């Protein structure tokens, strides 16, 4: 088999096998040709408060609305890592030698759904709204663009971003799934117009939204990417209950729910539908973290914090918990399999990631003795009131800590109140989650900077070294250099200081109707939602 794989021309049987393979590939390849028509029905577990992508954060807005818009750049819809940046409205781009000027050339002939032609003026107006919003307008991710000094539109098809310093993630930030390009004339008249209306350049035009019920889009016949989209339209049905979503997919009332299902739900769908269901899985750009309030004793002592992470048998948990919860991968601060992810051999050197759990727990007990708590102690573990994955992960954590003599009591707090308790510091040790809308160290690491910088630093610590490492990785334009800084950041965060730690990476499971083609799962449920390449097989 290896010979055939490496050099099939070396043997006659291999050639025959290859030819036979081609015979079979022939019809399959013909089937790969996208089919036009049909309405994609998607279940959406959340609903948007407003229609303005620059303002909102929920995927409940991205899934129904992204097909109406384009962004300057986007992640490659076929790239499973969700990190490869490709063009969308910007056809090409150049970066100045000092890394501070990004010049993007726009496609020509792109039209808004009302027929008006897109120009750099529209792009500038959209980015001005995101980066320099007027006083009465909320732009919830403007903190991501503090590096932008100026946005210029020297001619109708050129847009220029001038940065204060070179930024490794700048191209990725232009591919943010929220940065939809709006029409300048509309924004000039009413900068809040997009909160309640839709007008984009995307592959689908808006038909209707019935609050609490559904959202409908239909094919844009004048879409600039000729031949696309393949679907006649799509219908997003808002369904909060996961059992209702599963039932809808099972009864073929919905083709797909893009966010993801739990393992048991996947298994029930596979058992019921067999070949009629396709399952795509990926490590999720969300991780189940543990926040430790360093203002509470004895957690101000890093030996105690280190003992907490050393007690965890992550590798065993990965096997056991992945059967019942949406967690799986043993990971560092970046999604496994993505460019800045920690290689497995390096990961195992971090506290709590080793394969020898007995050794780790012996070390944890030694640290507790050194910290003056040889007999362990009791504390409260505050958990978020959501079953998946918080409940199983919380139960597992309590069991793991008991192995080193720590007696944790779980207190579950309603999901909507949990974040307030964390921010107010009303906890000792708590579950925490970090979800990114793109796999990018700038986004994934920002939360862990000192409390003076990060609003979401629940550990309430100050660590100037960590802040400095964040800045260094942010400005390192050489990928290898950046990787080194990310590793250093990770080592300091999870091993040396143990300000916080990850239990397991979330695992995204999307079982969908086998009719749905042309969609590839990525680690982020915010990405790849334009639906322009999606089609329905017969």
């Amino acid at each position, binding site marked *: 088999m290896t010979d055939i794989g490496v050099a099939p021309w070396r043997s006659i049987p291999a050639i025959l096998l290859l030819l036979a393979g081609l015979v079979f590939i022939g019809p399959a390849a013909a089937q790969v040709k996208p089919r036009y028509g049909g309405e994609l029905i998607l279940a959406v577990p959340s609903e948007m408060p*407003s229609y303005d992508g620059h303002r909102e954060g929920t995927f409940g807005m991205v899934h129904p609305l992204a097909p109406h818009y384009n962004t300057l750049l986007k992640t490659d819809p076929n790239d499973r890592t969700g990190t490869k940046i490709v063009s969308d409205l910007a056809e090409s781009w150049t970066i100045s030698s000092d890394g501070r000027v990004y010049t993007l050339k726009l496609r020509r002939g792109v039209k808004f759904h009302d027929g008006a032609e897109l120009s750099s003026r529209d792009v500038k107006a959209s980015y001005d709204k995101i980066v320099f919003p007027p006083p009465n307008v909320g732009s919830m*991710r403007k903190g991501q663009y503090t590096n932008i000094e100026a946005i210029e539109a020297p001619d109708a098809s050129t847009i220029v971003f001038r940065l204060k310093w070179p930024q490794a993630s700048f191209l990725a930030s232009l591919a943010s799934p929220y940065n939809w390009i709006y029409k300048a004339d509309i924004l000039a008249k009413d900068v809040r117009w997009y909160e309640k209306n839709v007008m984009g350049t995307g592959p689908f035009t808006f038909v209707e939204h019935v*609050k*609490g019920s559904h959202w409908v889009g239909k094919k844009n016949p004048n879409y600039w990417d000729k031949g696309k989209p393949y679907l006649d339209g799509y219908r997003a049905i808002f369904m909060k209950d996961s059992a209702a979503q599963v*039932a809808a997919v099972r009864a073929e*009332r919905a083709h797909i729910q893009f966010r993801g299902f739990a393992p048991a739900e996947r298994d029930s769908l596979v058992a019921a539908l067999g070949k009629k269901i396709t399952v795509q899985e990926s490590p999720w750009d969300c991780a189940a973290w543990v926040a430790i309030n360093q203002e509470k004793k004895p957690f101000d002592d890093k030996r105690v914090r280190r003992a907490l992470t050393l007690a965890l048998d992550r590798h065993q948990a990965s096997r056991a918990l992945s059967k019942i919860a949406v967690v799986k991968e043993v990971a560092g601060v970046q999604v496994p399999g993505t460019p800045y992810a920690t290689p497995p051999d390096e990961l195992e050197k971090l506290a709590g990631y080793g394969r020898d759990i007995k050794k780790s727990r012996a070390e944890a007990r030694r640290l507790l003795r050194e910290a003056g708590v040889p007999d362990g102690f009791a504390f409260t573990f505050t958990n978020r009131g959501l079953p998946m994955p918080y409940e199983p992960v919380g139960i597992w954590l309590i069991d793991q800590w008991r192995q080193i003599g720590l007696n944790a009591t779980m207190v579950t707090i309603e999901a909507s109140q949990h974040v307030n308790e964390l921010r107010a510091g009303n906890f000792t040790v708590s579950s925490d989650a970090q979800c990114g809308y793109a796999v990018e160290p700038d986004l994934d690491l*920002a939360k862990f900077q000192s409390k003076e910088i990060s609003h*979401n630093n629940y550990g309430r610590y100050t660590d100037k070294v960590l802040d400095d490492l964040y800045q260094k990785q942010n400005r390192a334009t050489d990928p290898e250099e950046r990787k080194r800084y990310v590793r250093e950041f990770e080592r300091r965060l999870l091993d040396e200081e143990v300000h916080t730690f990850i239990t397991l990476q979330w695992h995204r499971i999307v079982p969908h109707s086998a009719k749905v083609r042309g969609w590839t799962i990525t680690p982020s449920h915010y990405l790849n939602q334009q639906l322009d390449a999606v089609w329905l097989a017969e």
Partner: protein
Amino acid sequence: MWKYVLKRVLLMIPTLLGVAVLIFFLMRVVPGDIVELRFAGESAFAQKENLDKERARLGLDQPMWRQFVTWMWGIARFDFGTSMWTGAPIIEEIKLRAALSFQLAVMATIIAVVLAIPLGVVAALKQDTWVDYFVRVFSIAGLATPSFWLGIVFILMLLIVFKWLPPMVYTPFWVDPWQNMLQLIWPALAVGYRYSAVATRMTRSAMLEVLREDYIRTARAKGLWQKLILSRHALKNAMLPVLTVVALEFAFLMGGLVVTEQVFNLNGLGMLFVESVARRDYTLTQALVMLVALVFILVNFTVDLMYAWLDPRIRFR
């Protein structure tokens, strides 16, 4: 009679005012903040300046007394304001869901009444026979079965046996009656069964009581037909407590079908209620509580008026 009606109408005002005060302050006691929930949740880039700006826009930075006065002034002008979560007028948010909730409540009530009254009457007439035992088992089973559980059973049955699921999107009855019924008949049956159980028990016990009254014995002694005795003398009097139960249950259904709505993915008032509380959408929650309170008050008022129609003693008092 008119004086009585006027008095009852005027009494509604302090009742609603009390509800308004209570819900306004109760919502403020519940911890949580709509701005944090909407913008800061897990975003590392949400800045405090932006969050404060949003709080100011929603009027949450104002003293509580001023927020209360603003809200009450709006109510006095029948202006419930806009939802803090969506920014849409509250009337619009409620109107969308009210049609479905109202239809479901009406359908469940019809199912309940159609089942409960004949079954209750028959059980009372055939007391301690197998018919009575059957009705009692049927109604006790209904009381013991949560309607959402029955809903799940319906869904599983439809899925597994018929490989079919009711439509997921609401179609108004006047647009497509068939699609409308296909969607709503299942939750109406699930809810109506439990509802009928309560009413059946009440009908049976009320009928048993009435059938032992002197005037029924007199009617029988006079040689009146059994059917006439039942319809004119017994049933009409036995309906008084049944009417109260049915009416209160109807009012409850207008906003209380949270889990059933979730199971059947219905876009009704119950789900809106839960979501508005979870999101700390003060204005919407307050308006919904006021609406449900108003429905209860109006239903009670209607029942009182119907008492007078059913029972001449009340009418002539």
